[in-house]
């Protein structure tokens, strides 16, 4: 079943185009990583999905129009952004009381269970908690809501490495069950790499790559090319070429493995390397076009 369906999604501000006609199709049970440089339009896309902003084009989230039906939609959608959105004056117990009061799918016992594993005290105010603890609290609330779509916008920004690891571990172990759908944007690509089922690169308001992780693994190959094979490698039209520690590393898209193995050691690229290759060349191409 389809969770998000977008056709020609556009959003422009006074001077910039944030979304330049995006098509998006997300099925239930997927974990989609939305990766892009700063100002690429990630947050605008998420805001449109959450009903926080107007847009042109067609957009349906769980069969509803997010802009006109935000309050209804939020029964089935959860949102967790970088920590600063919980009000600083709120007490932990009040946060639980309020969500339990307004949200029909919030399971307070479950949230208390998650909180019991942390050092967060019920009487504390948000302003007294560390940044990591605020995220833990928000995550405990979100994981206790029986939602169908979870939207994470830079959820681990500014957290130390222990909190970040723990965040994604509990998300996978205690929350994701194959029926829920998650969209996550982050700059720390390597942290989400192993949990994504789908990958989307977005740059200057356009989608520049959209594939499942299986497709990603079969399509892209990274080869450490032996010096004498460099010309042969270039003949196969690599999408990117770089040098590291005196070696030439080539990235290929949809090139037969049998052609690649004679050139050198073949392996799957990391998302980060592919990102640099795709967005980097994209940036170069648009610069060239501008000239």
């Amino acid at each position, binding site marked *: 079943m389809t969770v998000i369906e977008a056709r020609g999604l556009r959003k422009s501000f006074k001077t910039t185009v944030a979304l330049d006609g995006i098509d998006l199709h997300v099925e239930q049970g997927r974990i989609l990583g939305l990766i892009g440089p700063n100002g690429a339009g990630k947050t605008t896309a998420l*805001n449109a999905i*959450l*009903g*926080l*902003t*107007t847009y042109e084009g067609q957009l349906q989230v769980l069969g509803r129009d997010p802009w006109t039906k*935000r*309050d*209804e*939609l*939020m*029964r089935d*959608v*959860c*949102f*967790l*952004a970088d920590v*600063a*959105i*919980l*009000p*600083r*004056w*709120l*007490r932990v117990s*009040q946060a639980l*009381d*309020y*969500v339990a*009061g*307004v*949200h*029909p*799918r*919030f*399971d307070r016992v*479950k949230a208390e269970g998650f909180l019991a594993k942390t050092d967060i005290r019920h009487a504390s105010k948000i302003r007294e908690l560390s940044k990591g603890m605020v995220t833990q609290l928000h995550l405990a609330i979100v994981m206790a809501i*029986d939602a169908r779509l979870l939207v994470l916008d830079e959820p681990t920004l500014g957290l130390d490495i222990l909190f970040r690891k723990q965040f994604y571990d509990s998300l996978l*172990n*205690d929350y*994701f*069950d*194959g*029926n829920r759908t998650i969209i996550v944007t982050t700059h720390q690509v390597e942290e989400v790499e192993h949990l994504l089922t789908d990958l989307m690169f977005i740059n200057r308001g356009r989608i520049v790559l959209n594939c499942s992780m299986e497709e990603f693994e079969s399509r892209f190959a990274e080869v450490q090319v032996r010096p004498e094979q460099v010309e042969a490698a270039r003949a196969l039209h690599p999408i990117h070429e770089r040098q590291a520690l005196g070696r030439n590393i080539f990235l290929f898209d949809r090139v037969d493995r049998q052609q690649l193995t004679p050139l050198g050691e073949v392996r799957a690229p990391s998302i980060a390397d592919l990102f640099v290759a795709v967005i980097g060349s994209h940036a170069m191409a648009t610069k060239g076009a501008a000239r």
Partner: protein
Amino acid sequence: MNTSSNIANDFQAAGASSVLSPTRPFYWSVRRELWEFRSIYLAPAIVAAVFLFGFLISMFRLPSKMRGLDPMQQHEVLQQPYVFVAGAIMAATFLVAIFYCLEALYGERRDRSILFWKSLPVSDLTAVLSKASVPVVILPLLTFSITVITQFLMVVISSVVLMGSGLGVTGLWSHLALSQMWMMLLYHLVAIHALWFAPFYGWMLFVSAWARRAPLLWATVPPLAIFVVERIALGSSYLPGMIGYRLGSGPEGIPFSTGGMRMDHSMAVLPPWKFVLSPGLWIGLAITTGFLVAAARIRRSRGPS
């Protein structure tokens, strides 16, 4: 795998049994306001406590003061503090209402928490109405309760003092007619503070939802600018007249008394039926509705500022 399927079952069980009534988000949103703005009840409570303290001290002088006065003057001396404390508490809550309205929809954008509130299934209209209910319902009722409790404590204190000094309390009780005073107070609060002033609260909430910064300035400077332009360009003073009409008197231009002075006359001067039938009341409420609907629409498209 086993645990995750258990979780899924738990969720289904929880989901099936949890249908909330539509009034619950409103109820919890109002409670939320009281958590955030503790001055709503602290300010009038502090005014009452300070006044009670002063009243207690004045009691030492009361018996000697009473002895030299005729009954008419005794009535004045006895009644004055009751009228005064009602006015002081009313003034405090009126100030709280002004600052609350200007902050309510602006503060959540300034501290970015609007993103959290909007991530929950509460509509913008529910949020705005819960905020409007603070000056229109919560504050008048709080003013009434705190005033009644304070005046009751004052009666107890002065009764003890008068009895202790051998003056007797019958004089005090016959002068005060507390239950009548309380009825007038409630009428004044509901009619004037809640309903007649509602357009001002609506305007301030609207500005608070709209302004990117300095809502106090946006709420006051544009009307002032219109005064000036109107005065210079047209030589008229239609807007100041309208605002003065609403702030300075009740419907039909009947003077009311803020501060609780002569509260015992207000129902005779402005009978409830006359108040309910006055066009000014209904025009004001229509304007208030317009401001609140506009505030809800603006809140929908506003993110953190």
